[in-house]
């Protein structure tokens, strides 16, 4: 099965991908229907032009600062640090962004690009609803109609975000195929796109999909890592020792990691372990899956022997995806980033810890990252520094958490 990696030369940098085929080594690519190919090639050209355009950069920076509220603080979590009794823990506070997560960094970038390309209709898929909300928000801001595909299961467990999207003027299309979660929502968004090629821009919410999406979404999210580096030098005068972020598709993680890939920093991505990797109910595609092709790219996937995609499971709707961005797959195979997993119950414990120790209700997604931080911090020296991406706030999750704790609200 193993095909040769296109890039077999020794690496000078971990920040140079993708190549001209949209590959990160074996991973990535453009595995889409012919109908979509011209659009994806147009998008690639338009994005390259935008990257060179001072005007585009100026608009992106303007909205990041004045609309999203960037830079987000790099906060020393003193009380948590003391209670864990090891490395110093910093939170990159992307949960303070407008709309409550990192997702808006990407939707702002993509909608500015959609406007440049003269597109008049926006579609998106969403799992937790954070990307849906962030997309609906920028569509309201720029006055474009917005259709969000969301799995029926997710609609149920993320009711507050569904209502938010409606308030913002988006149309929500419930997806009942499969298990009614993120993968199925992405299938239906792709079906919409292929039928509405002339006017529609598809805002993908993570570093997955056909080239150029993985690179483009990473670039828009990399503002997280660039700020972190600057803020860390200002606060501590040096690089952190360890970076930790949770991984659904991997966009908040790539955003934090990418600017540090060539630095002497340990980097850890945390996948959702659901009920545990020994069960078949988890969403850890790197630790529990193998390479395959889905949603326009080759990456690690949860799948059976026959190549049928398995359903993922996580308590966190935003991590409930059987794949992962192709650049993560590549970083995994090169051993540059360590990928670990955290179970539903470990994430819940970390969720509670964050509320009590820091007065911050985190989203269940970064609660996974925090659970790993809680494991490693006590094993590290007091002089060492961990930065964790606190990429979303937990208001949307209070019903799920109450349910898991057996509390009625």
């Amino acid at each position: 099965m193993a095909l040769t990696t296109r890039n077999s030369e020794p690496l000078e940098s971990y920040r140079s991908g993708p190549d001209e085929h949209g590959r990160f080594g074996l991973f990535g690519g453009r595995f889409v229907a012919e109908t979509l190919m011209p659009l994806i090639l147009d998008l690639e050209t338009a994005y390259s032009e935008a990257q060179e355009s001072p005007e585009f950069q100026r608009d992106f920076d303007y909205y990041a600062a004045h609309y999203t509220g960037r830079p987000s603080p790099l906060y020393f979590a003193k009380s948590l640090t003391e209670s864990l009794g090891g490395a110093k823990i910093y939170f990159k506070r992307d949960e303070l962004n407008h709309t409550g997560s990192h997702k808006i960094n990407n939707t702002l970038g993509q909608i500015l690009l959609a406007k440049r390309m003269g597109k008049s209709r926006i579609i998106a898929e969403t799992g937790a609803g954070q990307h849906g909300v962030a997309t609906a928000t920028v569509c309201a801001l720029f006055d474009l109609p917005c259709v969000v595909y969301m799995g029926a299961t997710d609609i149920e467990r993320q009711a507050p975000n569904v209502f938010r999207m409606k308030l913002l003027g988006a149309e929500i299309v419930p997806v009942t195929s499969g298990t009614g979660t993120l993968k199925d929502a992405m299938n239906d968004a792709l079906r919409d796109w292929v039928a509405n090629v002339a006017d529609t821009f598809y805002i993908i919410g993570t570093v997955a999909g056909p080239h150029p999406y993985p690179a483009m979404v990473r670039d828009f999210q990399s503002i997280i890592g660039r700020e972190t580096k600057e803020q860390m030098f200002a606060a501590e005068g040096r690089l952190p020792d360890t970076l930790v972020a949770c991984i659904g598709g991997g966009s908040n993680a790539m955003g934090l990691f990418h600017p540090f890939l060539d630095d002497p920093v340990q980097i850890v991505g945390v996948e959702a372990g659901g009920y545990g990797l020994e069960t078949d109910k988890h969403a850890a595609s790197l630790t529990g899956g193998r390479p395959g092709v889905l949603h326009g790219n080759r990456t690690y996937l949860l799948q059976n022997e026959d190549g049928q995609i398995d359903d993922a499971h996580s308590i966190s709707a935003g991590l409930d995806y059987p794949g992962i961005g192709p650049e993560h797959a590549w970083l995994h195979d090169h051993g540059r980033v360590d990928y670990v997993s955290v179970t539903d119950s470990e994430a819940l414990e970390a969720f509670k810890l964050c509320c009590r120790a820091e007065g911050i209700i985190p989203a269940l997604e970064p609660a996974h990252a925090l659970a790993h931080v809680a494991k490693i911090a006590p094993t590290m020296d007091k002089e060492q520094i961990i930065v964790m991406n606190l990429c979303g706030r937990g208001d949307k999750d209070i019903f799920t958490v109450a349910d898991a704790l057996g509390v009625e609200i």
Partner: protein
Amino acid sequence: MSSGDRIASTFERLRKEGRAGLVTFVTAGDPDPGTSQQLMERLPAAGADIIELGMPFSDPMADGPAIQAANLRALASGASLIGTLDMVRRFRQNNSDTPVILMGYFNPIYQYGPSRFVTDAVAAGVDGLIMVDLPPEEDEELCDPARTGGLHWVRLVTPTSNEGRLKQVLQNTSGFIYYVSIAGITGTRSAAASSIGEALTEVRKHTQLPIAVGFGINTAEQVRETGEVADGAVVGSAIIREIENNLDESGRAKPELLDQVTGLVSTLSGGLRS
């Protein structure tokens, strides 16, 4: 290709008969392996000139509700890529003329191993492949080994293929061209025969290959109209819906399913034989 080329001889025969061909699509293993095998075996006598056999996939992103459901039914009743190849092997025990084209998504083949798949598909009697999610940009994944190994590579040409793109798409295409008449998924809208005719004139400037047209063709009348401008008409969702209409409440095939579905195929093919 050699004289054993079933696709070429089928289009040659159709030319002599002075008509276009009916290309029928069914999903392998839908609604169960036995029914699906029998259906496939009866398709040529019912009027199918070429058989497209869908390789079931859990996430058929380019398909509408009817074919999505067919994929899930097949998988639920135990379908797999090995099973699909088996089906073709059995079909070939009694049929050596009707071209069989496998259509589907790359991941099951990628897991099976592309070169092993090509070998096994040729041995089973498969004539060609239509891969939804392998555009020319990804030719080295399967197109190149398939063509070297003796399979036709039938490519989808779409309304979004402009002239430059068209040349690229046609480059490694063989057997015939599958012109997708609408930008969209299977089983939803249909395009007007007049607009298809114009589009095909454009495509024919660049290729000598026969052209079959599909997506949104549901009735004998549409088959007839398509046959006036193209070399073949592909019907998929309408046949799948007929299968669906002949399932009992628990999703099992009713006794009349085979007669009903082959009856529909005869009616459709009548559109080309009047």
